[in-house]
């Protein structure tokens, strides 16, 4: 703050102020009053400052418009900065929501970082499909040997449906949810509920 850095002008004003208040030592006062007799501008400022201080001290006191008594009911009220039950509950909700959000993010991160498992259970069923026409069965046709008269043994052993049914895979079984993901979902849901409650209160 520049206020505390005196300038040359301020030094004279500080002297005037101390002179008005009788705060100068004998030597300082004698030196200052000698200057006052030599410097008319300084004298004018010093005398005007004295008038200002005298007039400020004579400013009238104003009667208060009322009494400022403390009412016993007012005194019994809790301090404005004291935590009320409502404020405490709100604070709890906010902290709990933040904690749940942090738990959600942590669980997601742990889930992302955990080593990936081997092939999921549903995929082998999709890869190993029954073939519509075994290679042995189609070879005679390719050679033009009238293979339609004598089907091979594997073709006979193959189920009837496999020979005629389209190649759609069977419906895959739903993958079981990992406990980490369940936890993350719960944490997110709780965080949302708590945020909503804290906001509504």
């Amino acid at each position: 703050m520049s206020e505390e850095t005196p300038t040359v002008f301020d030094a004279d004003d500080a002297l005037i102020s101390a002179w008005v208040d009788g705060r100068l030592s004998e030597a300082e006062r004698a030196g200052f009053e000698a200057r006052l007799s030599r410097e008319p501008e300084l004298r004018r400022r010093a005398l005007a400052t004295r008038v200002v201080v005298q007039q400020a001290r004579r400013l009238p006191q104003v009667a208060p418009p009322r009494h400022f008594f403390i009412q016993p009911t007012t005194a019994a009220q809790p301090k404005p900065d004291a935590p009320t039950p409502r404020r405490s509950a709100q604070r709890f909700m906010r902290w709990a929501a933040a904690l749940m959000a942090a738990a959600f993010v942590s669980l997601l991160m742990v889930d992302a970082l955990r080593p990936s498992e081997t092939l999921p259970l549903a995929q082998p069923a999709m890869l190993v499909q029954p073939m519509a026409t075994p290679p042995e069965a189609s070879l005679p046709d390719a050679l033009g040997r009238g293979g339609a008269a004598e089907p091979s043994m594997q073709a006979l052993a193959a189920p009837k449906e496999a020979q005629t049914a389209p190649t759609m895979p069977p419906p895959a079984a739903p993958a079981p949810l990992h406990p980490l993901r369940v936890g993350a979902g719960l944490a997110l849901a709780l965080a949302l509920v708590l945020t909503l409650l804290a906001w509504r209160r």
Partner: protein
Amino acid sequence: MEAEHEADLIRQAQRGSVSAFNELVLRYEALLFNVALRILGDTAAAAEAAQEAFLSAFTHIKDFHGGSFKHWLLRIVTNACYNALRYAQRRPALSLDQPLGEASAETLGDVTPAPGETPEEVALRRDLGRLIAQAVLALPVEQRVVLVLCDVHGFSYEDVAEITRTALGTVKSRLSRARAKLRDKLLAEAELLESGMRLEHERGDANSV
């Protein structure tokens, strides 16, 4: 005796006695209100600051561990004034240094004539008082607080340093700057007044010629 009685009232108030505290309120309410009035420049705001200060003092009276109770109360009321000005500052048109009101007849109070004072002297004193009260409200708030405590209410530099919790050098610096501003304003007004009167005089002469 008086100090002992006050200390006793404070002890009772610290034990929760509202009536003991209200005796202290009665003792200091005029001082706190007037300090707030000279800082804020508005009667309603000053009353509110004084009320808030007493309520805060009662709430925190257990934190008072001796020293000057008057100074402790004055510190609370000056803080309440700072809060009021900060609150008003949120309104875009006002700054922290701007008072909430202006020196009106209401905030100046009655200028009762001193013994042997002529009506002209009373009028001059009232005009000067109004000019000074207005100039005080135009000061930066920190200088205003120091000037109000030192010059209007007569507290020593040391008392003001204790009340405002600032260094003695800072109090002296703020006070000398505040006085210089007030003086310059008064001198400018006086010059203006003198020039105006001279002009009127010259006009009168010209018209008469």
